[in-house]
């Protein structure tokens, strides 16, 4: 079980899995932030037409397990989609971005990204909302009294303060997205956890396979944590100067 070090080929598997984990969670964070922000605005909207659907979305996606959501999207919804669409999604396509050619992602990647994004966006919307709620009502009133339009109040008064408050919990959600990406192994996506199981199956070096994967997760979380600390220090510094 301990024995000699894993053969290079298996280290490559783990590394490939790690890269996929990084790409998957980075994209999921990006998209869910982009989705979470309008969700938060809709949730805060005084119009029920906007706030109620947002409320329902947040409730449903926050209170059901990600594993079940992934199963639902990958095994459930796919069975309802038209066959041609699924076949198209599964076929390799060339995505040309200027001179760079991107490989078309596997269907498991698309489903995993979709599921992880929808799930994470609900939490990110709530963090934004908590950030906005932390800005006192008087601030808004003061902004309006200074003759700013409501949109300007949002842009110049509420958002800068809300984002500052929301930054640490937002980074926490990014860490969660990274950890949660491990569940995508249940739908056959070859990310880090999957790779560690694969290596374990082939080599039976259980301790090394899981040890390396665990260390990679923890190291990445630590890096995010450090980045967060640095951002906050800089922010405090800037606030002190201005």
């Amino acid at each position, binding site marked *: *079980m301990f024995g000699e070090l894993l053969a290079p080929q298996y280290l490559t598997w783990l590394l490939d899995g790690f890269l996929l984990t990084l790409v998957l969670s980075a994209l999921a964070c990006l998209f869910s932030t982009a989705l979470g922000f309008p969700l938060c605005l809709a949730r805060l909207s005084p119009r029920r037409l906007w706030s109620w659907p947002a409320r329902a979305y947040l409730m449903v996606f926050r209170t059901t397990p990600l594993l079940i959501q992934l199963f639902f999207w*990958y*095994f459930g919804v796919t069975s309802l989609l038209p066959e041609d669409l699924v076949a198209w999604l599964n076929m390799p396509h060339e995505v040309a971005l200027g001179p760079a050619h991107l490989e078309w992602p596997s269907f498991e990647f698309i489903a995993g990204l979709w599921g992880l994004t929808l799930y994470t966006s609900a939490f990110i919307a709530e963090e934004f909302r908590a950030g906005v709620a932390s800005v006192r009502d008087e601030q808004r009133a003061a902004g309006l009294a200074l003759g700013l339009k409501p949109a300007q109040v949002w842009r110049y008064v509420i958002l800068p303060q809300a984002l500052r408050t929301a930054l640490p919990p937002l980074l926490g959600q990014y860490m969660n997205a990274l950890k949660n990406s491990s569940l995508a192994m249940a739908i*056959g996506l070859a990310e880090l956890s*999957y790779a560690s199981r694969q290596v374990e199956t082939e080599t039976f070096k259980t301790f090394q396979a899981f040890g390396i994967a665990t260390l990679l997760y923890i190291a990445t979380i630590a890096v995010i944590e450090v980045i967060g600390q640095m951002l906050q220090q800089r922010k405090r510094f800037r606030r002190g100067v201005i």
Partner: protein
Amino acid sequence: MNRTDGASFMNWKTMKKLTALTALALAVVSGLAHADRLEDIKKAGVLRVAAFDSNPPFGFVDPQSKQIEGLDVDYAKALADKLGVKLQLQPTNPANRVPLLVANKVDLVLANFTITPERAEQVNFSIPYFASGQQFIVKKGTLKSQEDLNGWRVGVDKGTVNEGVLRKKFPGAKVVAYDDTPFAFTALRNGNVQAITQDGPKLIGLLANVPDRDKYEVPPFTISNDLIGVGIPKGETALTEFVDKTLLELEANGQAQKIYDSWFGPQTKTPLERLYKIGDKS
């Protein structure tokens, strides 16, 4: 944090507490530092066996009794009866079989467990009690020649021999691994993979329970010959000898044939000729 720091954090008192805790844990937990598992099983009066819960007819949850039933389970029952102990079943998927044995979570694995030299370094195997070959399920008429598989997306189970064999025989195939065969089959139904591969009898057992089984086929070729044995913790010689002896007895007194017939006999959903008998030279 360096070593001297760590030492200063852990003073003598916590050390003593930890030792006491470990001792307590060791005392509470049974089945550790055993000299002989066979004796332990007899003493405990329970045989812990890992079996499949989603792979008819080897091991599956019966909708009526809500218990795990199947061919593997019948062998497990026979072993427990012979020992005169209670049978306790632990559901497992393919990937958990070796870890369950190595971590001493179960005494035996009867879960369509293919005997391989690599696995034999981690666990003991009994003599084979079943034989099968790796085959495929595809949508009817889609597979024109075996070579097609080289460009296809093929679903396998994590932690199976099939995965390695597939990689070797069809290096061009894109392997997608799932937790269990029915997951892989659902992916095939949905069109996410174009074929799935597993031991033939397992695939036939799976198809027998699919409502629209006419749309699928098992092409008549095998890419490996596998012998299925009982997985036993490494180094448990007495337990291995007991399992071997019991399996031979089951064959001699006709019970093995009876078990086979009740799952693969002509009257079943999955009629399959019995080509391998326990004790045959492989």
